[in-house]
């Protein structure tokens, strides 16, 4: 009796173990399959994401006279790679002048636009401003309007003040362009910072205003950086406005130069055009990767509201 009991219970645990073992392998297989599919999807998208950038970089290192002469063999690194195209775009074309103009325009408008947005974003988040809801709706509705709609009125407005074909004539509308989205972003982010910090600072004797600015600006750094990167990007690649405003060659921006090259108005060979693209893209590219960690934290849409 005792013996058979032991045998029975032994058998029972054995089958139970087998079942658990079978279930485990089933789940493990399922999990493995999920992992594999995840990686396949992620890799396909990674290749898709990277291919055009690879294409332009490899083209810029090759010597291809025109697009029609390009072949698939040009996509592979070969012994013929050289920096000749870079030399050509830097020293035989006004690339550096265009870069200088572009940086003057973008840097000044980013600083002005972001400064205005910090002030309004903090105030919209922390003060009980009269008609706040109306203001927020107004910002939102303004963001529906395409900037191309402003091009015609801007043109006449700035020609009245003789600001066409000048730096200032572009810096003013560019700064305004950054304000709407940036104010919004900063307001949203600051909403999620607890008020305890400023209140503690006020207890320590800081005035409300300096508590706000001295405490909140450093804390809102991720969103400020994010807003600045976005604000920088718009003017850096603007053609719609600059193309209509700027007529003298000495004031051309990179975007105007690139547009004329792409339309064949300015003729350069295909490899040099690719080098132009790479050189124009690199500053923004570096900016993005340096501030990558802010991109996720900077864009916070609060969940529990």
């Amino acid at each position, binding site marked *: 009796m005792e013996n058979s009991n032991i045998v029975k219970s032994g058998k029972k645990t054995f089958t139970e173990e087998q079942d658990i073992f079978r279930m485990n392998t089933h789940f493990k297989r399922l999990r493995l399959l999920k992992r594999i599919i995840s990686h396949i999807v992620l890799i396909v998208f990674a290749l898709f994401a990277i291919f055009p950038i690879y*294409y332009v970089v490899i083209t810029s290192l090759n010597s291809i006279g025109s697009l029609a002469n390009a072949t698939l063999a040009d996509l592979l690194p070969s012994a013929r790679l050289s920096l000749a195209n870079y030399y050509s775009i830097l020293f035989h074309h006004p690339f550096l002048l265009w870069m200088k103009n572009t940086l003057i325009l973008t840097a000044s408008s980013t600083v002005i636009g972001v400064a205005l947005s910090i002030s309004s974003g903090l105030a919209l988040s922390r003060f009980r401003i009269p008609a706040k809801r109306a203001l927020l709706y107004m910002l939102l509705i303004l963001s529906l309007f395409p900037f191309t709609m402003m091009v015609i009125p801007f043109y006449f407005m700035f020609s009245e003040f003789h600001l066409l074909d000048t730096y200032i004539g572009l810096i003013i509308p560019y700064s305004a362009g950054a304000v709407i989205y940036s104010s919004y972003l900063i307001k949203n982010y600051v909403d999620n910072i607890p008020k305890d910090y400023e209140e503690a600072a006020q207890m320590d004797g800081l005035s409300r205003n300096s508590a706000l600015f001295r405490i909140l600006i450093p804390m809102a750094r991720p969103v400020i950086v994010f807003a600045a990167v976005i604000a920088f990007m718009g003017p850096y*690649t603007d053609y719609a406005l600059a193309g209509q405003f700027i007529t003298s060659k000495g004031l051309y921006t990179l975007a105007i130069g690139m*547009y004329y090259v792409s339309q064949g108005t300015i003729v350069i060979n295909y490899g040099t055009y690719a080098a132009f693209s790479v050189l124009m893209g690199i500053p923004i590219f570096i900016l993005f990767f340096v501030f990558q960690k802010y991109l996720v934290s900077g864009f916070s849409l609060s969940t529990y509201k």
Partner: protein
Amino acid sequence: MDNRKKSSLEFRGLLYVLPVIVVLAVLDFYPIFESIYFSFTDFNSLHFFRYGFVGLANYAYIFASSDLRTVILNTVIWSVGSTAVMVPAGFALAMIMNQKKLRGKYFYRTVYLFPWAFPAFITILIWSNMLAYNGGVINEILNAIGLRSLDWLTSPHYAMLSLILVNFWLSFPYYTYVYTSAVQSIPHELYEAAEMDGYGSLSTLTKITVPLLKRQIAFITIFGFIFTWNNFYVPFLLTGGGPGISTQILITYSYLQAFSYSNYALGAAYAVISILILLVFVIVSNHYTKMMSILY
């Protein structure tokens, strides 16, 4: 020190908002109203200095022309088509990368930054070369695997498809990042509790993630749609609205009328029509989703 009644308004706060209000008044409201006014005049290169009020003549002309229907239809195909692929793809990638213990997620996330980090203005032009009929790398690849070349940008059948494809490449990283940031705002405890209760990935998704992010999803989708509706550079640089007007959307058509044909009044009228449609869309979609409530 300060009076903290709930109802007291702080007019002092207006001081900080004032610069932005002034900027918006001068550089947004004034031009917008001027543009709306232009749409009721005969302002063009012929009447450059002495344009006058013509009432609804421009709108009557536009509504009588067959172009309007085509252009609106194009705009809708373009916006719906783009939104329908880029927003779900971003969501899916964010969910895939949000798996615990998935190896290489930072690597993937960094690689996905490439299309976003490289200025769109440039990459659109790169794509236009890649999609070129002769020498374009996409056709070269098609030929290499035994398929014939396609008129990616120059045939009315494929042009819109190409625009959406390029826009997909440009935008999916942004949506991946936005959804990653949204999903990370959900407390870990909820997921741990779900795991304890034996929820699988699918039920975690449908019972936790989606319900909690409902408003964000609505907001992101609707603003993605609006942004695409107003997205000027992809059609402008890739096809210029061609062939014919088969990829002309409202905003590029407005720009074309104003700056290629110097018909400023007609350009302005097209812009006004575009805004009116968008406004109706925003009001209706907000009514159903209440997405604006995440703003305040």
